Each structure stands twice: as structure tokens, then as C-alpha cells.
């Protein structure tokens, strides 16, 4: 049992390494394939010692004097040691920027997932239980309405009404939360304040996922409710609530889990927009700034980090499958 688990983790690490190599190769190639001298392309304007210094640092960050594969090897080994290079305009280490912005985006996405699941799961269960009735169609229609609302529109509306007009919540900004100290050592943390800043952005991100999760759960749950073991649970005299939550939910949640893992990609994209609107200093905002400032080295690092994050989340989902369904544990071991 122990051995199997270790083997599984080892296999996952190998896969992670492969993903890292492939993604980093493409981000690496992205800069090297720029026509002409990359340092001139990235820093096209400006003369004088400041810019020359910046170009020199960029040249050494990129290791341009060596051959193509030697350069890639350099880049990869630096990446593994979490050495991401520098922002040419300020000379600040990209690693520091990542440490500041990554926890913010992670928190935002975690909250968004929690909110969307917390709303979608009860709705999905209820819609499946009442499949074909008015309750079901009301839930479906509302969810689709929410799906049709682009999250930047929702973000703007929330920011305007709840933030600017009612002044219930801040319209933008950020206060450190529970993840920041893990990345940045001792940071002053005020959880209440932190959550106040996160409510609107997280909610704007969450709404788009609700309809998708709800529909997937509803479909699987309707199928599960036809199963013999549900009739058996009913024949035991259990209450409907117990049958739905204790017997039907878990076997119906595999697709939902898969979708929740894959939706991290969508969430990252959506987080860029939402972070810009609410000026949340997460990676999404940093990406936009990096693009505007032509900070290729910085951008490159964010892309690699996002790819790794995506893979890690889906590994986590893989492990959760086994938690949800014991039969998968055995299939894995075999």
C-alpha cells in the first residue's frame, strides 16, 4: 500500500518534470526566436548607461553568448532553482514579484472555487432530486442566466454598485491573507480585512463556474438516483436528505471533480480580467503589466508557473478521485 503510493507519486513527479521541460522549452524558444538581437527587441528604445546596463543584465539572464541548447540548459537549471531572472526596467528579481503575486492569485482562485462549489453542489443536488419539475427549471434557467453574464461585466457591476455606491466593500486593492506569510515570511495579516477585499473579485470569478458545475452534478446525480443502491437506501427507511447527501453525492461527483480541476485554466484567464478591474495585485495583474511593458523575461516565468500550477492542481484532482471512489484506488494499484 505504502509502496504503491510512493510509486504513484514518483510517476507523477516524472510527469511533472516532462511538462516542465516542454513548457519551459516553448517559453524559452519564444524569446530566442525573436528576430535580431533579443536584447534590442526587448529593450528597443533608450540609450545611455542605464539602458546599456539593463541590456547587459538581460544578456546575462538570457545567457545569449552560448549555443542554443546550452542556453536552454542554463535557463532550465535556473528555473529549477527558482531563479527567474530580472525585470529589465527596474532590475528587480522576478522571483520576488512571483512571491508577492502568486499567493494573491492562489487565494483568489481558491475562494472562487469554494464559492462556486458551495453554490453549485446544493443546487445540483436539488435540481437532480426534483428533475423535470419547476424547481429544476428555475434552477437551470437562473444558472444559465449567470453563465451568460461575462465575468468582467459582473465585476464592473459589483464594483460599481456594491463597492462605489453602497460602499459595503472596497472596490479594489488587497490586504495580505493566510497564504502570503508562507511565501514572504512575516507579513502583517488581518484576515477580516483580507476577506473584505477578496469577496467581490472572488464572487465575480465564481459565478461563471456555477452553471457548469451545477449541470454536471445534476446529470450524474440523476443517473445515480436510478441506481439499485439508492433504492436499497430508500428501502432502509433513510431520509431523503441522507440518501441524497450520504449515498448519492459522492458517487456522482467524479465528473464535477474533473471539471473543477480543468477549470483552473479558465479561472486563470478570468482572474487576469478580474484582477485588473479590482486592482488585485495578483499574477493576472502582473501579466498585463508585463505585457504592456514588454517584460519578456518576467512574462516567461509567469507562463511556466501557470503551466506547473495547472498540472499540480490536476494531480491533486487525481488523488481526490481515489478519496471519492475506493474502486479507483484498487484500479490504480493493479
Amino acid at each position, binding site marked *: 500500500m505504502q509502496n504503491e503510493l510512493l510509486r504513484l507519486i514518483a510517476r507523477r513527479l516524472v510527469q511533472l518534470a516532462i511538462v516542465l521541460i516542454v513548457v519551459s522549452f516553448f517559453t524559452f524558444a519564444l524569446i530566442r526566436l525573436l528576430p535580431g538581437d533579443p536584447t534590442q527587441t526587448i529593450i528597443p528604445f533608450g540609450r545611455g548607461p542605464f539602458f546599456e546596463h539593463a541590456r547587459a543584465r538581460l544578456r546575462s539572464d538570457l545567457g545569449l553568448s552560448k549555443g542554443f541548447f546550452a542556453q536552454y540548459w542554463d535557463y532550465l537549471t535556473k528555473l529549477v532553482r527558482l531563479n527567474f531572472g530580472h525585470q529589465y526596467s527596474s532590475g528587480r528579481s522576478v522571483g520576488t514579484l512571483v512571491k508577492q503575486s502568486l499567493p494573491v492569485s492562489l487565494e483568489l482562485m481558491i475562494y472562487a472555487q469554494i464559492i462556486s462549489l458551495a453554490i453549485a453542489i446544493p443546487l445540483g443536488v436539488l435540481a437532480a432530486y426534483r428533475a*423535470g419539475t419547476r424547481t429544476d427549471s428555475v434552477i437551470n434557467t437562473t444558472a444559465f442566466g449567470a453563465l451568460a453574464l461575462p465575468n468582467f461585466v459582473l465585476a464592473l457591476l459589483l464594483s460599481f454598485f456594491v463597492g462605489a455606491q453602497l460602499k459595503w466593500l472596497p472596490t479594489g486593492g488587497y490586504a495580505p491573507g493566510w497564504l502570503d506569510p508562507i511565501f514572504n515570511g512575516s507579513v502583517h495579516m488581518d484576515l477580516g480585512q483580507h476577506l473584505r477585499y477578496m469577496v467581490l473579485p472572488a464572487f465575480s470569478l465564481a459565478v461563471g463556474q456555477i452553471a457548469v458545475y451545477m449541470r454536471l452534478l445534476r446529470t450524474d446525480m440523476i443517473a445515480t438516483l*436510478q*441506481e*439499485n*443502491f439508492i*433504492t*436499497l*437506501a*430508500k*428501502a*432502509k*427507511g*433513510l*431520509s*431523503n436528505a*441522507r440518501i441524497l447527501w*450520504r*449515498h448519492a453525492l*459522492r*458517487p456522482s461527483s467524479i465528473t464535477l471533480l474533473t471539471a473543477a480541476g480543468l477549470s483552473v485554466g479558465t479561472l486563470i484567464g478570468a482572474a487576469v480580467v478580474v484582477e485588473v478591474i479590482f486592482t488585485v495585485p495578483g499574477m493576472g495583474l502582473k501579466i498585463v503589466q508585463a505585457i504592456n511593458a514588454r517584460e519578456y523575461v518576467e512574462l516567461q516565468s509567469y507562463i511556466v508557473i501557470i503551466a506547473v500550477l495547472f498540472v499540480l492542481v490536476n494531480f491533486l484532482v487525481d488523488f481526490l478521485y481515489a478519496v*471519492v*471512489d*475506493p*474502486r479507483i484506488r*484498487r484500479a490504480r494499484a493493479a
Partner: protein
Amino acid sequence: MTTARFTETEYEGPLLEVTDLKTSFHTDVGVVRAVDGVSLTLERGKTLGIVGESGSGKTVLSRSIMNLLPRFGLEREGSVKFEGKEIIELPPRQMRNFWGAQMSMIFQDPMTSLNPVMKIGKQITESIRQHLDVTREYSSDLAVSLMESVRIPEPKVRLGEYPHQLSGGMRQRVCIAVALAAGPKLLFADEPTTALDVTVQAQVLDVIAKEQSERFMAMILVTHDLGVVAGRTEEILVMYAGRVVEQAPTSVLFTDMKMPYTEALLASIPKLDEHSHTRLATIPGRPPDLSHPPPGCKFAPRCRYVQDRCLEEEPPLQAGDASGHQYRCWFPVGTPAGQEALARNERDGRVPAAATAAAAAGGA
């Protein structure tokens, strides 16, 4: 608790009385009359066998009595009295007090009737804790002794396992334990061994029989195999196309069957002394489409005794010689009328329509 269970009702009549129960499903292809006017009576501690081919309505009948069918498109009428109390119209909220505690069911397929993601122990104890006010520890002790008594080896280990870790026979024993957990007075065993290996079928049936007699529990044993009910029931009810076509005390049925369908069913029992490769005498043709049943006797298209009258007029349930014997036939087996009908058919070369169709299909 146990003593209370036997003293709480003074009702002296039969445990279960079903009168003219009709169950139909409204589907896209029409109204499927899966159970069409079934009546039966069951005394405490007794066993009733329900026999019929696949699709004859056995499962629908038992689930309909228990009120366990999905409500969508369902229509149920007639009367179901449990200990003299009418329960046919009871909403699920009230049926919950009967389910598990008063009546419970063992399903046809043990592979799909246990929750795949819940530990065995939990599946047994939750049934106990739903109906009896006991502690967690007590309920798991109870589960262990239940599992011992249905002869599951190493019950303490099994408690923490999942259904997929058990063989079919063991799973069915778990289902039996689940069904018995809250001490019901009536057990429906819906083809409890059909999905199992021949070698374990007898063991599982014996476990059920042992529990039944120890608990003085009434049982409805559903099967398509007359051989299964032969030595295990007091009375047998033969079903065809949602109806009772013959009903008799077990000994009477085997010595004096009147219905050609019962005869045909008996001929299709696999015999142990025969070589396992001999083909079973299966009944030619298929049961009728229940949404558009033929007029007359529903079995007529497949019957060796068939006469013109059978195709036009449906025979009523009529009493046989022995008490409690009823059958539905114009030309009953072993009577002069029946023998004459069979002889006439043989002389004229008349074979049932379904048999010619089957032969034609086979020849083509």
C-alpha cells in the same frame, strides 16, 4: 425492543393482505400494465413463492407492495394492508417507518445494490441506527453478529471493506444482513440468487431460510425457477404478464398443476442428474407486450393446449379441487377438457403461433 416488537400490535389477522393490486407505468409507447389485479395473503412467519418468467412483473409486484417504485409516470391502485393497516396511499414520509423496520427487501443483483463508495459496516449500521435508538458501538457490535449469522467470515475485517472487495455471494450476504438489520416482520427476497454462481446459490438460500425461521419472519421469495421454491415455501403464486395465473399450496401445485404455463415452467427446471449440456425445454416465444396485450388468455399464443376460445376470451381465476388452489385456464392440464384439447391439437397439427414463429425464425 424485541419483546415490544411482538406485543405492540394486537392485530390477529394476516400480516399482509394485497387485494386487486394494479400497477402501471405511463410511458411513451403507452401504458404498461406491469401488475394487473394481483391479490395475495401472507400469514406471519410463512413463506410465499412468486414464480414467473423474466418480465412477468415479479419485481414490480414486490416493489409495488413496498411502495418503492419511482413515482414518475406510475399509477397504483388496489389495497395493500400490513397488519390490517391500509398502506397503499401512505406518503414516503410515513412509509419510512415501515421500510427496513417492518418490511425489507433483498434485491436481484448484489453487484449493484450496495453503495460502491461506502464501507460495508456503515451500510449495515446505518439501517440499525435509523430505526433503533442505539449507540454507534452497539450498532457495530450488532452488525458484526449479523454478519456472523449470515456466515460472512471475519466480519470485523469486512466491516471496514468496500463492496468491490467482496465476491458476489458475500455481497448478497451483506445485503441479507442489511435487510435483516432492523428486524423486519416481512422480507421480500427478489431472486436473491439469480446473479450468483450455482455453487453458492444453495448456501445463500439456506442462510435466508435459517434467518427466517429463527426470526419468525414472513417471506416472499421471488424467482423464475420453480426448483428454488419447491422445498422452501408453503404456497406458490405463478405470474404471467402481470397476472396471477395459478396459485396453490406448494404440494398441491407440484402434484396437481392446472395451468399449461406452470407445466411449461416446470419442464424448464434444470435437472441436476441430466448432463449439463442437455438443452433446457424453454417455452417457445416471448411474453406479450404489456402495453398492448392480446385479447383472451395472455399465454394462449405460446400454449400447447390453445383453442379458439383461448384467443378470444380471457379465463377468470377459478377454484381448483384443493382448498386455496386457483388457476386461470379454459382447458386445464390433467382434466378431460385439457386432454381433449391437447389431443385435438396434436391430431390437427396445430401448434402455438409463437412456436411456429420461433421455428420460422430459427430455420431462416
